[in-house]
């Protein structure tokens, strides 16, 4: 941002130290590369679920929140167009956490106007995690933008590549793409299972959804199972108190 000599001035902000700057850039870009890599699996799964390549790309460009995208196509895969309302509901509930991230980020980023729209679109698990773990406000800003932009660019490129791969594959079951969806969901869940409370909520959600599956149309059991989150109403029984808020 500035090439002013290091050291705090009497007034105005201190420039970001070159070392800090390099560290934050490296951190943001590596998170971008790691996250971008699994855009491949999203693209392939979305096409296997029955979306075309452009619909798959539209989800990554416009929705841009990985867990919600996986949930949306997972439910479409099991129930087709008839389950679209459940797919929208599950995807939207899974995205609620982004509003909490935005709350945390508001004072750090101090954005207005078009920049605020851009910041909103880039508000996801990864950009929040990199931003809030910096110990300086300008490092947090840099971390947010570098991570958000690199994830956005790579996630969309790899989604497109994955969709082309998925299109070429044919029957998704032959390559275990249906099982890849199960593995993707458990991998998204895993880092959030910290403490007895979050494990109890996960077990309740899984059991409720399984028991309701034979009785209800596809997708609806998942939406109903979200009620298991109400178990967090009473508060933590343990010291960590972070029932499921991911800070990878």
């Amino acid at each position, binding site marked *: 941002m500035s090439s002013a000599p290091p050291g705090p001035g009497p007034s105005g902000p201190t420039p970001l130290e070159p070392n800090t700057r390099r560290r934050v850039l490296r951190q943001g870009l590596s998170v971008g590369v*790691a996250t971008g*890599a*699994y855009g491949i*699996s999203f693209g392939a799964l979305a096409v296997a679920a029955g979306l075309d390549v452009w619909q798959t790309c539209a*989800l990554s460009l*416009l*929705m841009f*929140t990985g867990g*919600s995208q996986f*949930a*949306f196509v997972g439910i479409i895969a*099991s129930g087709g*167009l008839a389950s*679209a309302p459940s797919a*929208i509901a599950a*995807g*939207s509930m*899974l995205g609620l956490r*982004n*509003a*909490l*991230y*935005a*709350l945390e980020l508001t004072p750090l980023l101090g954005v207005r106007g078009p920049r*605020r729209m851009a910041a*909103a*679109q880039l*508000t996801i698990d990864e950009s929040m995690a990199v931003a809030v773990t910096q110990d300086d406000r300008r490092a947090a800003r840099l971390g947010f933008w570098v991570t958000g932009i690199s994830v956005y660019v790579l996630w969309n490129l790899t989604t497109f590549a994955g969709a082309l791969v998925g299109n070429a594959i044919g029957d998704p079951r*032959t390559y*275990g793409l*249906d*099982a*890849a969806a*199960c*593995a993707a*969901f458990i*991998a*998204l*869940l895993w880092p959030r299972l910290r403490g007895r409370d979050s494990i109890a*909520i*996960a077990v*309740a*959600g*899984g*059991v409720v*959804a*399984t028991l309701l*599956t*034979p009785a209800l149309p*596809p997708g609806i*059991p998942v939406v109903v*199972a979200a009620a298991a*989150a109400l178990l*967090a*109403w009473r*508060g933590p029984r343990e010291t960590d108190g972070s*029932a*499921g*808020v*991911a800070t990878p």
Partner: protein
Amino acid sequence: MNLWVAILVAAGIAFATKLAGYLIPAQLLSGPRTRRVTGAMPVALLAALVATQTFTGPSGTLVVDARLAAVGVAVVALLLRAPFIVVVVAGAATAAGLRWIGWG
């Protein structure tokens, strides 16, 4: 509902949710209970998705097949701290392999 409409509605809600966090006064969303429940929602939903994607068979029946083995392998990979993409590929390969030898 047309699939394009569903995609645009879902994307619109996702963006509105993110933007809301920047516009809404913090007190409205930051009560400890609201925070805890919203924070726990991904746990409940993702667990429900793991369960339904693993056990749902044709027309809503519950089945045990290669997908459960894939989830088992995915859990082992996660315990070994494998990155996301490795977990997904290991799960897919497990199911594909089992089906290739004629099970599940």
